[in-house]
C-alpha cells in the first residue's frame, strides 16, 4: 500500500509565555515523530492529554509548521493548508449564522462554485450523514451530535483525500458517540479517504483504527503503532464486548497506562 503522509523526525517546540518571575522557556511538545500513514487507511492517534496530538494534526493540516523535520503529503512537503485535507474539530466550528446546508456548502462557495451546483453537492453530503431533513436548521437548533454530523459532511463536501479529525466526538454523550463512530466507519468504508483520527479514548482508538499510534506524554513521541486486525466493525454487533476487542484494548491500555500517570504527574508539578 502506498504512503499518503510521511512524518519524518518531526518536532514541535513552543515558547511558553513568561509567567510572573519565570523566564520564557522552550517547551518541546513533540519530539522526533516518525510515522507513515498509508493511503486509504484509518489511523487513530491516542495519547494522554497535553501530549501534543492536536499540534500534530495542525501541522498535517498545514495550520502550523514543524520546528524541525518534515511532513510529506504524496511525497511532497506540506507548505500550508489546502482543500486536499479536510479537518473536523472537537468544537464543531460551524458558522452559527449559516444553516446546515450553507455550512456544508461553505468551502465550495469559497472556491467559487455556482450556487445550484454547490447546494446539490452539499445536499448529497447531508444525506450521507442522515441530515437531509435538517438542511434549513441553524446550528443552535441542532443537538451536539447533529452539529458534528454537519461538520463531518462539511469536511467531506470538498472531497479531500485526507480527513483529519481532532477529537471530534469528545464533547458528545456516550450513546451519541457510539452511533457516530459507527457511522463514521460506514462513511469511511464508502468514501475510502485516508483518515487520521485523534482521540484520548482507548476504546474509540481501538474501535475505529486499523492501526493505533500511541503517543507518549511530554515530550510527545510515538511509543508504538499497533495493528488492529478487526474486520467488519460496522456489521459486527456489539464488537466492543468481544474477547478480541478486549485483548486489543488491553494491549493499548498497558502501553498508555504509564504515560497517563506521567502526564498527570507533570500536570501537577
Amino acid at each position, binding site marked *: 500500500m502506498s504512503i499518503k503522509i510521511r512524518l519524518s523526525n518531526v518536532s514541535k517546540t513552543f515558547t511558553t509565555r513568561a509567567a510572573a518571575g519565570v523566564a520564557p522557556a522552550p517547551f518541546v511538545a513533540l519530539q522526533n515523530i516518525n510515522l507513515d500513514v498509508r493511503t486509504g487507511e484509518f489511523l487513530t492517534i491516542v495519547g494522554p492529554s497535553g501530549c501534543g496530538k492536536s499540534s500534530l494534526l495542525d501541522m498535517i493540516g498545514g*495550520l502550523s509548521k514543524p520546528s524541525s523535520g518534515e511532513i510529506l503529503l504524496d511525497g511532497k512537503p506540506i507548505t500550508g*493548508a489546502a482543500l486536499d485535507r479536510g479537518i473536523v474539530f472537537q*468544537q464543531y466550528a460551524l458558522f*452559527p*449564522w449559516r444553516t446546515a446546508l450553507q455550512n456544508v456548502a461553505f468551502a465550495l462557495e469559497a472556491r467559487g462554485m455556482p450556487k445550484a451546483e454547490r447546494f446539490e453537492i452539499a445536499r448529497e453530503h447531508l444525506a450521507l450523514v442522515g441530515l437531509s431533513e435538517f438542511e434549513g436548521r*441553524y446550528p*443552535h437548533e441542532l443537538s451536539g451530535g447533529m452539529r458534528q454530523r454537519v461538520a463531518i459532511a462539511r469536511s467531506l463536501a470538498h472531497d479531500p483525500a485526507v480527513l483529519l479529525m481532532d477529537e471530534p466526538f469528545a464533547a458528545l454523550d456516550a450513546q451519541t458517540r457510539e452511533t457516530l463512530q459507527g457511522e463514521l466507519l460506514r462513511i469511511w468504508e464508502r468514501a475510502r479517504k485516508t483518515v487520521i483520527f485523534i482521540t484520548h479514548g482507548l476504546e474509540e482508538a481501538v474501535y475505529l483504527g486499523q492501526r493505533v499510534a500511541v503517543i507518549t506524554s511530554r515530550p510527545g513521541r510515538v511509543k508504538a503503532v499497533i495493528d488492529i486486525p478487526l474486520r467488519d466493525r460496522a456489521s459486527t454487533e456489539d464488537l466492543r464486548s468481544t474477547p478480541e476487542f478486549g485483548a486489543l484494548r488491553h494491549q493499548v491500555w498497558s502501553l498508555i497506562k504509564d504515560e497517563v500517570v506521567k502526564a498527570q504527574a507533570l500536570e501537577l508539578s
Partner: protein
Amino acid sequence: MSASSEPASSDVGGAPWEHVNRPGWLHRTWQVLRPIFERSLAIVLFLLAWELAPRLDLINRTFLPPFSEVVVHGVQFAATGELFVHIGVSLSRALGGFFLGVATAIPLGLLLAWYAPLERYFNPLLQLLRQTNPVSLFPVFILFFGVGYATKVAIIYWVVVWPILLGTMAGVKYVDPALVKYARSLSLSKWQLFSKVIIPSTIPSLITGMRLAATYSFLMLVISEMIGASSGLGFLVTNAQYVLSIHLLYVAVIVIALLGITANYLLVKLETRLTSWKGHVSGDERF
C-alpha cells in the same frame, strides 16, 4: 408550578388555578389578551395614579396636571401642526448624527480591529476621547460649528461614534477562534476571511453598539436643543419652562419618550432580522 421546566406559553398555563372550565371562546380570547394585559397593567396603573394624584390634591396640579389634560393639550398642539415641525427638526438632527456615526464608525472599527498594530497605537487615544464628557465639549462644538444644525449633528455624532466603534472592534476581536481556524484550514483569502467570517461574526455586538448609540443620540439631542436651539423637542421643553406652560412641557417629554421607544423598537426589529440565526430566547445557549 408544574414540574415541567418548559415555559408555560403554549395552550394551557402551568398553574393549577388556571385549569378552570371556561367556555372555549372565552378561554381563547383570554389566551390572546393575557400577554397584553400582563404587559400593560403596570403602565395603566401608573397613568391612573398620574390622573388621580392631582385631582385628589395629592400633588399640586400646577406642577403635575392630570394625564388626560396633558393628552388634550398635546392633541390640540398637534392639530396646529407645530408639534410635527419640532419633531421633524429633532429627527433630522438625531438621524443625521446617528447615520454619520454608523457610516464612519463601522469601517473605522473594522479597520482598527483588523490591523492589530493600528489598534495598539490608537486604543489609548480612543479610550481617552470616549471618556471625555460630551456636554463639557459643547462650547467647543459651538465655537467650531456655530449654533446651527451642524453643531447638533456634530455633538450627536460625537456620542454615537464610540459605542458603535467599540462594538465593532469587540465583535472582530471576539470572533470564535475555532471559526478562524476552520477558515484557515480552507486557505481562504484574507478578503474571504474578512467578508465571510469576520463581518458576520461582528453583527451582534455591532447592533448592541447601535442600540446604545441610539439612546445616547436622543439624550444628546435633547441636551443640545435645550442649550441652544430655537426649534426641536428639547427647545420645546425649555420654552415651555420659560412661558410657564406646564402642559406643553409634559407633552414634549412624552413625545421624546415615544420617539426613543420607537427608535429602540426599530433597532430590535433590525437585530431580530439580522441575527435570526441566533434564536431569540434569552439564555438559550443549548449545547
